[in-house]
């Protein structure tokens, strides 16, 4: 990593242009419908600048922000997940050949994606999914293909949403890995750092000067303050044991009375990886696709086998989700399944908050 560089705001335009010139499709937070999502940006003016998000459990609104602020929105429902782990994709095509058939892999079309404005928690989530899809016993080639050739421009958080708790999960608010460039936005400029040789080369092409000690210091203070001011917390001590031991906590029933089992929390979660594999046959029966679609442990079919459903009640499914996220994930992959982005809290229509649920379980366990 190089030393912090001073990057005037206008240079962002340049960065986007250079990336586009290198053949990247550049994606960044763009206002769409009543939210923001990562969509193509051709210029800075496409970004959701000058607006801020107001988030709380079960509620999200975009509001006028600070003029001149480019990355004012902490996050929207969409993370980077759909770009690498596609919500609905064709894995293989099986074609009849006489009495037999031939199966061929459907390889996603090659593309170069550059993301601008990625938050630390989302980078951490990408690392979690990398661990699952790339560094486990079986390697997922579709994920691998989509994940290749990506340029990441992170933005360090200087403001958190009330639903954020990345500090508890040690994933933010400052990006520490997984990026090519990281930016800290200040009133008049960015402080930029590189996180890879590609990033370093990009800094050079942008022709930036080294940031003054004061500028670098100010950037650090902003992220530190953001960390200190984070309202939500999740006490991770004693996990996974706490949740394993509290499998019979009455709290599961209580939360199940509120949970709609609608699957929103899992769908917006940047690390949830469950998927269904379904067959889609052409009407003439000559070709059939095996398609993968995002699935959720909140769906009734998820744990169903012939004659038995292992998790028939909503309380079983809520417990599965929370226990997996915060406990068994650690046993499975050596990392927590939660990065503290707060999406499952905001986007739960009835505002169920996992930090509160854990706190309640912890409290009742002590008694």
């Amino acid at each position: 990593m190089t030393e912090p560089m001073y990057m005037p705001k206008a240079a962002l335009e340049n960065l986007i242009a250079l990336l586009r010139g290198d053949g990247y499709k550049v994606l960044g937070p763009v206002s769409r419908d009543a939210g923001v999502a990562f969509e193509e940006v051709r210029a800075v003016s496409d970004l959701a600048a000058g607006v801020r998000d107001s988030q709380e459990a079960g509620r999200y609104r975009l509001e006028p922000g600070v003029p001149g602020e480019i990355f004012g929105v902490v996050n929207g429902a969409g993370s980077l997940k759909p770009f690498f782990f596609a919500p609905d994709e064709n894995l293989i095509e099986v074609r009849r050949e006489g009495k037999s058939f031939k199966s061929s892999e459907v390889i996603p079309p090659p593309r170069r994606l550059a993301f601008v404005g990625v938050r630390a928690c989302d980078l951490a989530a990408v690392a979690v999914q990398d661990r699952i899809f790339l560094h486990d016993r079986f390697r997922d080639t579709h994920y691998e293909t989509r994940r290749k050739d990506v340029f990441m421009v992170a933005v360090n958080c200087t403001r958190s949403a009330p639903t954020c708790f990345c500090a508890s999960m040690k994933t933010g608010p400052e990006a520490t890995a997984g990026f090519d460039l990281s930016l800290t936005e200040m009133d008049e400029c960015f402080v930029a750092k590189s996180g890879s040789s590609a990033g370093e080369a990009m800094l050079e092409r942008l022709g930036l000067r080294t940031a003054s000690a004061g500028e670098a210091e100010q950037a650090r203070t902003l992220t530190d303050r953001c960390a200190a001011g984070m309202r939500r917390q999740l006490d991770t001590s004693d996990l996974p044991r706490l949740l394993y031991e509290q499998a019979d906590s009455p709290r599961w029933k209580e939360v199940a009375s509120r949970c709609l089992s609608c699957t929103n929390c899992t769908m917006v979660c940047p690390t949830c990886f469950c998927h269904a594999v379904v067959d889609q046959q052409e009407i003439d029966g000559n070709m059939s696709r095996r398609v993968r679609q995002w699935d959720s442990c909140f769906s009734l079919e998820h744990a169903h086998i012939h004659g038995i459903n292992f998790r028939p009640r909503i309380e079983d499914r809520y417990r599965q989700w929370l226990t997996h996220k915060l406990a068994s994930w650690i046993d499975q992959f050596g990392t927590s399944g939660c990065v503290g982005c707060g999406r499952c809290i905001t986007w739960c229509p009835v505002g169920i908050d996992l930090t509160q649920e854990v706190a309640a379980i912890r409290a009742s366990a002590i008694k």
Partner: protein
Amino acid sequence: MTTPYAIYPARITERRAETSGVYTFTMRFTDPGIRRSYRFKAGQFNMIYAFGVGEVPISIVSDPEEPEALQHTIRIVGRVTEVMGRWKVGDIVGVRGPYGNGWPVDEARGRDVVIVTGGLGCAPVVGLINYIFRRRDQYGELHILHGVKTPNDLLYRERFDEWRRAPRTRVYLTADRPDKSWHYRIGVVTQLFDELAVPASSVAMMCGPEVMMRLAARAFRDKGISEDAIFLSMERRMECAVGLCGHCQYREYFACKDGPVFSYRAVRELFRTTGI
């Protein structure tokens, strides 16, 4: 780079009806290269694919030393297996695998083995028994316990009789609700444990309803068999079999890659709660 989801065609060379609704298919990969390089261990399973309809996990019941002719015993229970039930010799089906860890046949070598199955009978157990019979001198006493609800549920009746006649082998059959034709024991399978005398050095392997396995495991532990020597084959929904789709999660385990066979020590705690 090949996706772990890739499917390979195999030709059915034999179809045998075990009983109504249960068939054993012998199949060979059509691609000679794959056929020759394919290897598996006893108790592993394949994902078997019916064109355009779906794919389901099915154990391999044939012997690992004859990997070119794979045998699968399939019970017709639902959507995909119904289609499989209509498969004929010469049909081309899809196979990928092998997956899972298989039975601990190496650990059990030289020791007495107790095999327990219940309910509608478990194809993987038949594969295991056959495996041991083909290497009979490598194993000690063999005890086969099998409990059914009604005599009609007893599959492979002739095979049980055949095994019963084999040396150093004991077969215990019981039915909850017997009829006149039943001349074995009466009651639930767990009642058989009382009369079972096995040394603490035995290895127990089982496959069947979870309640049965839980009770059996406890009974073996009470007989002094170590929790590490009691093995259970767990069933969970599987859509990928490669630890990615998430359906077969069993708290910290994936039944497809960490199982389907688990030692009692590994899963004992999970039996405490329902809905996991």
